[in-house]
Every structure is written in C-alpha cells, then in structure tokens.
C-alpha cells in the first residue's frame, strides 16, 4: 500500500533547497572555534565573536579544571585489599562475637569479644553469667586496648637480649632444679592449677606462692581462725536490707565489684508502687566510690576501724552507746549505734563487710555477721570466691628465703612484688641471690625486667584458658585473634618443662572434655563461654568463739583512747585503689588513665586526698570562702605536700575532697610505674606502696603517724570536673540534679513533680492559673511560641536511674571503645580538651565536711528542641526523624557555636589530631607530642571500631546514642520482617553497666523498657534543665537516699531547709 505523504509547508512538499537548509541548520549553532577564527582574526576581540559567552565559560571551565588539577595535593593512597581466599566464617563488615573471659590477677569477668574482620575491638559482658549478668567494669572494657599495646613484649629474652623459645627451653632445662618457687597472683583456673601441681611435683621441695599486690589475706586468715577454713565465702548484697561497710570499697575495688554492684543495685532500685530500699551505712576514712553511694556515711580514722568493729559487735549484741568507750567522736558513736540498729532490725538480711587487712578486725566482722544472722543468708559458705588467694606472710617468708639463698629458681606469673611489695629493695636483693629467675609476662614490668628469662605471655584475647571465680562457676577463655607477637602461654612452658607432650590447648580440651563428657559438650560450652552451677541455698558456718574473744582483746588493747592524747593530733594515711588503675594493672592503659576517678574526677595522676578541714590548716585554703574556693578550682596547679612515714617520703599534689576524715589523708596505689610499661605511664603519679607495711602477718595499707610538710611547689592535676556543688549564692540548681531522702519521698511522693511544675510554671502563658499536673502536661506545647511537631515512628530515648548508678565508669570506657573516642593525654585534659562523649558528673550537697554525693551520667541529651541545631551555620548538626540529634562530621566546619550553646556542655571539639585521622599526615609530630602519643600508632589504631567514623581535627563530636548499633538493630528487624524490639539494640553504655542503671529504647513503643521505666516512675522522673524547653530525650530518675537518721534531724523539709541554709552560708561568704 502506498504511504500517504503528510506535509506541513510548501517547502516540505516541494522539498525545496531553502527548506532543506533550514531543517539542517535549525538547531545547529556553530561552535565558534572553526568558523569564527576568521572573525576573530578580523576583529581581534572576543567581544566580536559570535558566541563569546560560551567561549568564556569553556575557557573558564578548562582553566579552573587545569588549575585545580595542577594545584591539587598528592593524597596518600590507602589500599583496601579484599580476601583472595575468603575465610569461611568471616564476612567483611559483619562482627562475630566469641564468648571468652577477662582474667587479670584473680579478677574474672565473663565477656563476649566483638571481632570485626579478625580483630577483637570491644568486650561486652556475657549476659549468661550468673555472677555478673552481663555487667562489666571500666577495667574490663579497657582490656581490649591492652591487646594492641605497643609496649608489649614481642619476643623472649635471656638476660635482656632477644632469644628463641628453643634457646630458653634448653637453658632452663639445664638450670631448673633444686628449690623452685612459682610466684603468681591469684590463679582461678582449675586446669592451670593442675599444671602447676604437675610441674612442681617434678621438683621436690618446690612450692607455689600466691602473691596479691593488694591482698585479702586478713579475710582468709580470719575465716580460717573463725570458721576453720581458709576460704572466702560469697556475699549476697541483693539479699541484704542493711549493709554496713567498714571502709570496704565493694562497688569499686573490693573483691568482686562487678558482682557486688549488680547485687547492691537490687536493693537500691525503687518500685514506686511499693517503696522500699536497702540501707547502707558506710564507715569511711578517705572518700571512696562506695562511700559516696552510701545512705549514711561516718568518717573515722583508719586506726579506729578495730574499735568500730568491736563497738559494733558490742552494740549488735545489745550494748549501748556508753559501752563503745573506745570512740571519742560523738557522731561516730551515733553512727555505730545507727549501724547496729539497722543490722539488728534486719536480722537475717544484714551484712557487714570490712576492707581492713587486719586479721582481728576481720574476725570481729565475722562475729558481727554471725550475730546478725548473715551466715547462711547474706553470706554463703557453700559457694566460695577465688578472686584473692594470696597470703602476705607466705610471700614475706619467700623474701626471707630468697635473701637467705634458699631459693634456686623463681618463676613469676602475674605477680609484681618488685613494684608492689612495701620493702621492694629487699625483694630486689633477694632476686639477685636467686640463680634462675623466670618471668611470664605481657610486658617488661618492674619484676620482669629483673628476671633472667622472660617469656612473653599472650593477652587473654589471644589465649586459651578457663577460670573458676566461685565454686561451680566456670568461665572459659578462647582466642579471638592469632597471637600478634612471639608469645607463649605460661602453661605451655610449664607443660613443656614438666615433660608433658601436650600443649596447653590440647591439655585444656582434654581436661574439659573428660569433665563435661565429650568434645561436643566442650565445644558447646565454649559457645556459651561459661557454666553456671545449679542455684543452691546459702550455707552457713559455725563461729569459733575463742578466736573472737582473742581478737576482741587484741583490738581492745590497741584501742586509741588507751594511748596518750597525742594520737588524736596525729595524721593518718590510708592507701586505696582507684577504680580504673586498681593495684597498678590499669596504669599502662590510656583509656583507664584518662578515665576520671569517680571520687576526685582526676585523670593521669595520683595525689594526696585531704579533707576541707585539713586544707584549711595545711594548705590555707578554705573551701567555704568563695574566693579561695574559686582560686583552688580554676587553677589546675595544686599545692604539693611532702608525705613522710619513717624514712619514706614522697611529694604529691593535694586535692581537697569533702567526705574525708579531717585527720586522714589518702593516696592511691598503682602509680609511678616503670616506663617500659608504655607511653601512658610516663609522668603519671608516684608509687605509694612503700607506705604500706608488713606487720608480720599481713600487709597494712594504713599508717597511723604521717608527717606532712607543705612545699612551695605546685603540680598540675588534670581534673575533668572542678566544681562539685550545685548550690550557689543565687540559688540551688535543683533543675540540674534532684535528690531526696527516702523519708521525705515516702511522706511526700510527688515532691519532685511539684518542684518540676513550680520550675516550669513561669514558662507557660497563664501557668500560674494551672494545676501542677496541667503545667507538666502542657509544658511541651505551651512552653514555646513555635509549633510542636508530632514525632511518629521510632523515638529513641534513654533513662538513667541515679539510684542504681554508682559512678563506676564502666560506661565511660565502653563508650570510648565503641565510638573511637580519642585519648588526649594529660596536657590536653589540663586544658579542658578531653573528648569523652559520656561523663559521670558528681555533685556534693549538704554538709561540706561529710556531704551527700550524687553521680549523674551525662551524655548528649538528644534534645527535641536542640539549641545546638539552630545555631550551626552549615546545618552540620541536625535532627533525625527518630529523635536523634545527629552530627555530620564532614559538614562540620568547627565554629564551636553548638558547643557554646549546649546547656549540658556535652559537645566535644577535636582541638588537635588525636587519632592520626588528619588530612595532613603526622600532623602533630614534634609539635604537641603528648597529645598524640597514646593512640595514633598503627597498632593502637587496630582497636578502632570500623563502624564509627574516626573524627578529624577541627570538628565537633558527641554522643550519637551509638547510632551504628541502632541502624544495625533496625536492619536486623527489617531482615526478619518484624517490628524492632528492645532486645535488638543495646547501646554501649547500657551494655557495660553492671547495675543496669541505663534503659534505652524506642519511647514510642508502648512495650519498650524505656516507656515502662518512665511510666512506672512518674514521681522520680525528671529531665535536666527542663525549664529551658530543650526537651531532652534523656530522662533521669531522682536519687533517693535512705538516710532516715539525717532526715529526722532535719524534720520533713530535710533537703530543702538544708539547701536554704547552705545558700545563706554561701551568701554570707560572698
């Protein structure tokens, strides 16, 4: 069929030449280059060219591109190489979790190691553990960094020179013999104990000495004397309604703090429908973390501890105040009576613990526990604790033996007596007389560096092993990474030297396969990482009255009042351990060094703690004088005092810490380590162990007569918080933190709601005409002139229970590890440059000599009406649809306006290149060395979490609510095609918390824990600075203190009146 031709013009119809040209040229604007050269040549100007604008743009584009290409800097190329042969069980970008166990010098915590692409990067508590229930401590959280410590030993040494394992084995085979002594810190591993026994049996006359730097010998010996068994029973703080602690820091450093913190929190958690709380009375020499959490706290001298124990024993047996004649201080007397009253009121649910290393004191404590029915209830002799097994006198004997030349060979595992033994010189002299000295250690510590043979030990994350922290509780160690260096487990060495053909891995496997009934069972157990025993009823023990009687008379003979009056003027010293550094184990870990001490909030140093009263006389600083207090607070250099005990003296800076006995000073042990332990120890503090003394039976960490001399020097102490009171001359800042006594809470449960309503009333139009409940309900909408938005979908929220938070700092280190938070070093902390996303603020209230303490973890509050967001000129910080206040690092230009405008001051600026993330390589080298020395080498950087951006210099950062975990949780739920639930996500701080003080989840979900905790605690719930209408997504539950005795003194209006008088006092001083 012929096609019809349609035409639209005659030109088209006729196919004329003119038409064709027009069609051809219609959209064909010639580029000027070809044709217009002639034009250009003629006119000589671009302006006459046909399309000068296009040319101009072309030239501009080309020249800009050329200039950019020519000027662009050479960027370092970093190659990411995929697996040539991908291991079956590794998916790049997906983390694997292995159940393993944190073990260090007797401390045991079951953990899961998060392994990303073959590198362990984070430790999380193992929820299955009956002991810790998923809780961790700051030191557990920080332990992963020790794996990547640059100061670790990389090869075996003979007399300080590199050697091979073969050479060492050969030399030792020749030398080993005669009297062999193995000195270890407490070993909880059953298989290791077997191996040691096997090894020692080959060498008759040899022995195993357990040496703990800060030992619990007195408890073990006291239990032997009082109950006939040298064991440590397990404690049940959760079952105790009345807890009396004679200066035992059981939440921080005493025996098994993670376990006890978990138990303690049970009694501190408040159910608003049925309010009850345990009561904790603390006798304290130097302000401690546990004392800060106590409901009632009484200050005493270390030397009075025996008298207090004796007085308490008399009182619980029905004695009266007059019978406590050893104590002259009336407050202390009242305290003992109050403690006795609380204990006897809760017979069978009472518990007394003591931190003293004096056997007699511990025997008396046993007697008190017996009298108040603790044995078999809150104390269980059926399950014994193995955390501390060292007996000081054993080691003292060994030192004598070594000096007497009676020891041929000594092996050190974990023990470091050259550093921690009070008379270290004698240990050194003894070591010099021992023919063969062998040390198994990860690092060249003080003792190891004096040993002839040094066999590098693997980190626990590279090892196999097992642990039995308490009877029937087994926890297993499996490697999560191939050994980084030439290391060999000390069990391997012992097996080899005993002639066993098995290596430790095989030995362990056989050992447990036999016990568990097969390899399959062993593999299965390894997956869980632990074995919990079947729960059994607590077992009591019968007390040996004779031991108590002799202890009583021994203590009575030593009681202070029986000596002359001069003793009262003497200054006493109490050595203590810090939560992070411990007996010295944490000293080389920059995370722990930079973790502010919960009590002093100081980092990177030890110092002398004195009371405000002593500060007045010793330092001439009166904290009640506003000017002097300011001068003390705002200037980091603190006065240096020389402490002398006998012939030993050291000079340390002084911090004034309320809550310390007026004539007692405190110094932390664990500092002043040798520089071979790593960069983190350099210049941090001084060794206080020489102040300890061996009394023939145990080591005493107290000194009864100390000389203090004020020097004219100062020394800067890097404090993260300088001011600790929330009352000012202009009023009590109760919007910041809320606390009240149990008595007033019971009498007036809605007090905090009313207080909040009162604060908010003025912010609402016609607020005065509203009822309190209306004010609270309408504040969000009516407290602003701007529209309030609906927030459907997910709305992330967090709640922190100030009652169960004990300030231990596990969350702080967990946050550091999870979010790649930089370590900045002491010089930078001194300048207020620390980077912590989460901090635990500490506030004092009440009497400045013996104040109440509140810990308040503070992270980004993720305000719905965030003041930081609207001031950023480039919108680098903004709000997500899920209620997160987000930080976009690569958009941030670093004006710091957001940080200024944050009322909570949680935003942190990268003042320098702390992690080697700068676009200028090695930027800080030679410049601010101290800043970068800790964390920016390739090995340390292996700990970084690949899911979290490493921030570069010049940007602001802050808590993200672990957004990487939130995204993963949502993805998890999405993959499973179900709504997200609480169990999908746990943020790092929440995960680490031993007391589960932090709740987190979707606040729009009616069934989530966060919704529940807010709904169930309407009377304690508050947000910080609520009146600012920034609408934080972090809520807090007010601190309730079971201090009835104090509250009674102040009648109903206890804390209000107290605050009022404080204000007046402060005003008067201004």
């Amino acid at each position: 069929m012929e096609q019809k031709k349609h035409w639209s013009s005659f030109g088209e119809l006729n196919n004329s030449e003119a038409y064709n040209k027009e069609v051809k040229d219609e959209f064909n604007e010639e580029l000027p280059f070809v044709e217009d050269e002639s034009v250009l040549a003629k006119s000589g100007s671009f302006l006459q060219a046909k399309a000068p604008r296009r040319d101009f743009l072309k030239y501009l584009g080309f020249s800009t591109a050329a200039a950019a290409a020519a000027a662009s800097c050479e960027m370092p190329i970093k190659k990411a190489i995929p697996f040539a042969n991908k291991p079956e069980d590794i998916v790049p970008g997906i983390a694997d979790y292995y159940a393993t166990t944190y073990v260090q010098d007797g401390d045991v915590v079951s953990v899961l190691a998060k392994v990303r692409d073959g590198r362990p990067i984070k430790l999380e508590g193992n929820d299955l553990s009956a002991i810790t229930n998923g809780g961790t401590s700051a030191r557990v959280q920080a332990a992963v960094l020790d794996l990547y410590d640059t100061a670790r030993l990389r090869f075996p040494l003979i007399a300080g020179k590199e050697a091979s394992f073969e050479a060492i084995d050969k030399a030792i085979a020749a030398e080993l013999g005669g009297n062999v002594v193995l000195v270890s810190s407490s070993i909880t591993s059953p298989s290791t104990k077997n191996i040691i026994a096997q090894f020692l049996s080959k060498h008759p006359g040899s022995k195993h000495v357990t040496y703990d730097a800060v030992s619990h010998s007195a408890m073990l010996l006291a239990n032997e004397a009082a109950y006939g068994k040298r064991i440590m029973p397990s404690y049940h703080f959760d079952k105790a309604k009345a807890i009396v602690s004679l200066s035992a820091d059981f939440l921080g450093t005493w025996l098994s703090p993670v376990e006890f913190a978990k138990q303690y929190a049970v009694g501190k958690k408040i159910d608003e429908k049925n309010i009850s709380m345990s009561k904790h009375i603390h006798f304290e020499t130097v302000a401690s973390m546990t004392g800060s959490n106590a409901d009632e706290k009484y200050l005493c001298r270390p030397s009075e501890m025996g008298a207090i124990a004796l007085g308490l024993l008399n009182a619980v047996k029905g004695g009266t105040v007059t019978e406590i004649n050893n104590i002259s201080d009336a407050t202390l007397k009242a305290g003992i009576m109050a403690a006795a009253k609380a204990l006897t009121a809760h017979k069978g649910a009472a518990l007394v613990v003591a931190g003293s290393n004096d056997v007699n004191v511990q025997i008396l404590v046993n007697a008190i526990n017996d009298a108040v029915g603790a044995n078999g209830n809150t104390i269980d002799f059926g399950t014994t604790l193995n955390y501390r097994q060292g007996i000081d006198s054993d080691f003292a004997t060994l030192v004598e033996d070594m000096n007497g030349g009676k020891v041929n060979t000594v092996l050190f595992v974990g023990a470091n007596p050259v550093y921690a033994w009070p008379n270290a010189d004698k240990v050194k002299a003894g070591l010099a007389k021992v023919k063969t000295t062998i040390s198994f250690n990860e690092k060249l510590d003080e003792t190891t560096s004096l040993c002839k043979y040094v066999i590098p030990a693997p980190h626990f994350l590279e090892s196999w092993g097992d642990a039995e922290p308490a009877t029937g509780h087994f926890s297993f160690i499996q490697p999560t990474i191939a050994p980084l260096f030439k290391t060999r487990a000390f069990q391997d060495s012992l097996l080899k030297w005993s002639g066993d053909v098995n290596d430790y891995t095989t030995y362990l496997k056989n050992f447990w396969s036999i016990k568990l009934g097969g390899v399959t069972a062993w593999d299965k157990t390894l997956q869980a990482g632990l074995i919990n025993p079947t729960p059994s009823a607590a077992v009591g023990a019968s007390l040996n009255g004779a031991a108590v009687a002799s202890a009583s008379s021994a203590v009575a003979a030593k009681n202070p009042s029986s000596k002359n009056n001069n003793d009262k003027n003497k200054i006493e010293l109490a050595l203590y351990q810090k939560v992070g550094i411990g007996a010295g184990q944490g000293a080389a870990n920059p995370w722990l060094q930079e973790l502010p001490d919960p009590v002093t909030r100081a980092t990177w140093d030890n110092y002398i703690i004195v009371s405000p009263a002593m500060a007045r006389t010793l330092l001439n600083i009166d904290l009640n004088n506003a000017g002097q207090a300011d001068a003390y607070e705002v200037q980091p250099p603190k006065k240096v005092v020389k402490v002398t005990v006998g012939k030993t003296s050291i000079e340390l800076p002084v911090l004034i810490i309320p809550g310390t006995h007026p004539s007692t000073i405190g110094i932390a042990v664990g500092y002043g380590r040798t520089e071979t332990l790593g960069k983190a120890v350099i210049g941090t503090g001084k060794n206080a162990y020489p102040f300890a003394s061996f009394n023939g039976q145990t080591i005493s960490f107290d000194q009864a007569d100390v000389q203090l001399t004020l020097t004219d020097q100062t020394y800067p102490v890097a404090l993260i918080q300088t001011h600790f009171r929330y009352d000012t001359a202009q009023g009590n800042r109760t919007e910041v933190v809320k606390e009240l006594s149990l008595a007033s809470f019971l009498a007036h449960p809605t007090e905090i709601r009313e207080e909040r309503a009162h604060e908010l009333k003025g912010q609402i139009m016609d607020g005065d005409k509203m009822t309190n409940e209306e004010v609270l309900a309408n504040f969000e909408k009516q407290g602003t002139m701007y529209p309030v938005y609906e927030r459907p979908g997910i709305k992330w929220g967090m709640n922190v229970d100030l009652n169960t938070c004990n300030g231990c700092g596990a969350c702080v280190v967990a946050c550091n590890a999870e979010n790649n938070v930089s370590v900045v070093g002491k010089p930078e902390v001194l300048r207020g440059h620390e980077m912590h996303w989460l901090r635990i603020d500490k506030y004092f209230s009440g009497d400045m000599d013996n104040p109440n303490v509140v810990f308040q973890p503070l992270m980004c509050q993720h305000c719905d009406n965030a003041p930081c967001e609207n001031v950023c000129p480039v919108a680098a910080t903004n709000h997500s649809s899920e209620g997160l206040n987000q930080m976009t690092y690569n958009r941030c230009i670093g004006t710091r306006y957001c940080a200024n405008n944050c009322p909570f001051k949680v935003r942190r600026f990268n003042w320098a290149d702390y992690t080697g993330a700068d676009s200028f390589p090695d930027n800080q080298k030679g410049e601010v060395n101290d800043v970068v020395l800790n964390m920016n080498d390739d090995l340390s950087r292996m700990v970084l979490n690949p899911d979290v951006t490493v921030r570069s210099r010049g940007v602001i950062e802050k808590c993200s609510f672990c957004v990487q975990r939130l995204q993963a949780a949502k993805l998890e739920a999405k993959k499973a095609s179900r709504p997200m639930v609480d169990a999908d996500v746990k943020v790092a701080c929440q995960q680490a918390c031993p007391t589960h003080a932090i709740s987190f989840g979707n606040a729009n979900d009616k069934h989530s824990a966060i919704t529940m905790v807010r709904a169930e605690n309407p009377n304690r719930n508050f947000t910080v600075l609520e009146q600012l209408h920034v609408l934080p997504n972090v809520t807090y539950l007010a601190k309730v203190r079971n201090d009835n005795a104090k509250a009674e003194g102040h009648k109903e209006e206890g804390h209000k009146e107290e605050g009022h008088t404080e204000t007046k006092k402060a005003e008067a001083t201004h």
Partner: protein
Amino acid sequence: MHIKYESQLREPLVYGNKDYHQVTEDILRPIETKPTRLWYIGFSIAVTLLMFGAYSVYREVTYGIGQWNLNKTIGWGWDITNFVWWVGIGHAGTLISAVLLLFRQGWRTGVNRAAEAMTIFAVMCAGQFPIFHMGRVWMAFFVMPYPNSRGPLWVNFNSPLLWDVFAISTYFTVSLLFWYSGLIPDFATVRDRAFTKLRKKLYGIAAFGWTGSTKHWQRHESLSLVLAGLSTPLVLSVHTIVSFDFATSVIPGWHTTIFPPYFVAGAIFSGFAMVQSLLIIVRKVFALEDYITIGHIDLMNKVIVLTGSIVGIAYLTELFMGWYSQNKYEGYTFWYSRAYLFSPYGWSYWGMMACNVLSPQIFWSRKMRRNVFVTFFMSIIVNIGMWFERFVIIVTSLYRDYLPSSWSVYYSPTIWEIGFYVGTFGLFFTCFFLFAKYFPVIAVAEIKYVLKRSGESFKPGMESIEAQPLDKFVHDNAH
C-alpha cells in the same frame, strides 16, 4: 570681626587662610612627597606584626585550634572577642560618612575619608576571626549559600552565624563602594597633578576617567546619597546581627534582649574612639590640624560621652534584670561571675566598667574634650574597655553556665591567640600606612565644598553679605 550671621555654636571647619589650591597642596603633600623616616619605621613595625599574626594563624590552621587555650566549656575566647571588637570599631566610619551626610553635618568632611578607611580595614581585620576560628577553615566556603551537588545542601538560615556572614559581607561591600566612590574625584586630582607616567596611569585607572564635568558631579552626588541611604540601616543592622550571635542563644549572660541597641551604641562608642586615636596621629604627622580641627575632636568626644553613657545604662540594666528576673542562672552570671570583683574574672568586668562607663564622663568638661592629649589617652582607654566588654560577655558567660560540673578552669590565651590579635593590628596598620601614603586622607573635594561656607578664611568675605539688607539676603539665600 564679629558678624551677624556667624554661628555662635559652630566653629569654622577649616582653619587658616586657605584657597582651593592650598587645600589640594596640603592634603596631597604626603602622596606626592617621599615618605618620612617615621613612616618607614611605623610601616615596618606594622608589617612585622602582620607577619607574626600570619605565623600564628599558620600554626592554628596546621596544628588545630588546640594551639589556643579554648576548651570544652569556653568554645569562644579571644577569637570572637576580637571579632566583635574590630566589627564595633568598623562602625564609626559609616556612621560618619552616611548618617552624618544624611543629617547634613558639615563637620564630617574633615574626618570621613580616614574614618571610612578605618572602617574598611577594621572590618577586614574582624573578618579574619570568624574565618580562622573555624576548626576546618578550608571548608569555610560551606557558609556560602551556593547551588551545589550535595543534595543540594543549603546553609542553615536559622543560624545567627550565617546572618553574620551576610551582614558583614554586605557591610564591607557597601562601605568599600562608598569609600571608593568618594575617592574618585580626589584620585582624579592626584592624576591631574601626576609627575610620572606610571602615577598618571595608575591614578588614572583608579579615577575611572573622572573629568569633573557637571554630569559627573551630579551622578557622584546621587550615588553618594544612595549609598548613604543604603549604609545607614547597615550601621544599625551589622552590630545588631553580631549581637544576635549571643542574644539568640540559651546561655545566661548571652540570652538578653537588650543586646542589639546596646551593641550598636557600644560599636559607635568604640568606633569613634578609634577614629580619635588615628586622626590625632594623622593630623599631627601630616600637619593637617587646619582640616581636622580641635572642633572635630570636640564633637567626636561628645559622641563618645553619649554612647559611653548609653552603654553604661545598658550594663546597669543587665545587672538590674539579673536580680529582678530572679533567674538563678542569670543572677549567678551577672552578680557573681561578673559584678563580684573577687570572682575569677571579676577584674575584667570592673576593668570594663572603669574604662567604658566611668572614665568617659570626663568629657562632660569642654576643656577635657578639647584637650588632644586627654582625648588620645581616653580613646585608647575606651578601646581597651570595649575589648573587655566583649571578653566579659563571651568568657564570663561561658565559663560557668548551667551545669556546675562543666565549669571551666581559668582561661588565658596562648601566645598564638595573642599573636593572631596582634597580627590583625599589623594588618590594620599596614593598610592604614599604605592608605596614608597613597590615598588622600581627607576628602579634598569635600573640603573644597565646605571651604567657602565654613572656612575661617572666608569669614571676611561674609562681611559684604553682612552689609546687605535683610530682604536682599533672604532673597539671595532662600531656595
């Protein structure tokens, strides 16, 4: 020779027996002669300071803001203090040139050129601080709202810092145009008197082909009026917006509605003080006492005592409100952190009070207003006081705000923070020395404009007018 229509209040604006030629000769002398030894010494000092400043900034950019002593609590310190201080100084020039032009204040002619130059240099100095206080200055262009491929991702129009960007850049542009348009006739004069080819060429380019035709003058006058009209609101807006950096925040001590008027008054106060400092030197060095007369100094001192008192009232109002509001956070900031002399920064508050509020009261005395030495000394004192004011506002508000846990340790600057500040002095004076050497420091054409009406030497000529009957005078002079 007292005449009937001579003002009893206004003194002559130009002293001495001058004619147009003499005016040209007097003012252009520095441009057409070799610089003095003093100029070389001054200039090299300024360049040295500038170099030190450049090195300080180099360190800050290369190693990070950690080179400064700012911290987690005090995010801004000397940087923004100096920024606000310089911006404040930059206010007098435009006020003199624009507002006084609109109000037909003839006396502005003697001082406007130098004051405008000062404005421009001060704003240039001010601009360094918000740029280099950024942690990632190489990303500073993010603050410009330009079409981009990031979404497109725009700037945050809610942020006062962004308003700053617009306010300062607008102010700088308009001030520069105003200044330059005024310079055109004078450049033409220099060109016409040029004695080398190069001079002729360069000043010729700068003069934009000015011929002095009536058309040119007419357009020039219109342009001046238009720019004056544009600048006048800017005088008020720039420091108002700078004050929003603080006033829109939630920090006690910043969150204050009084800030805009109080900042503007303070800016004029410090600007006039800086004009005084500079002109007292210029008139001495270049022997221009006949043009920048003691009458000028007197008038500017009156502005100083007025604005100083306004600022004083603002301080007292803040204190009153700190108490009256019964807001404990405000109360603490105003009554403890600031007004309590023995608090850590109490000295800075009382330094500010002494310099800004108490000492300018000396200018109620006419004798003191007309004393060059007193004026020079006071102008320095005022600028120190105004620096303290910004320091007080920024640092004493930040260092102890809401949470006592975050209260800061004592902040004192590092050498590099000081170096940056000193460097901007270097920049300022380098520019000013170059300006004084190559540009007419007094508007030649404008002086000629007022010469016959307000010049002292033309008083005798007025006597013929004096002799006229009133009707004729009115007829001649009424428009």
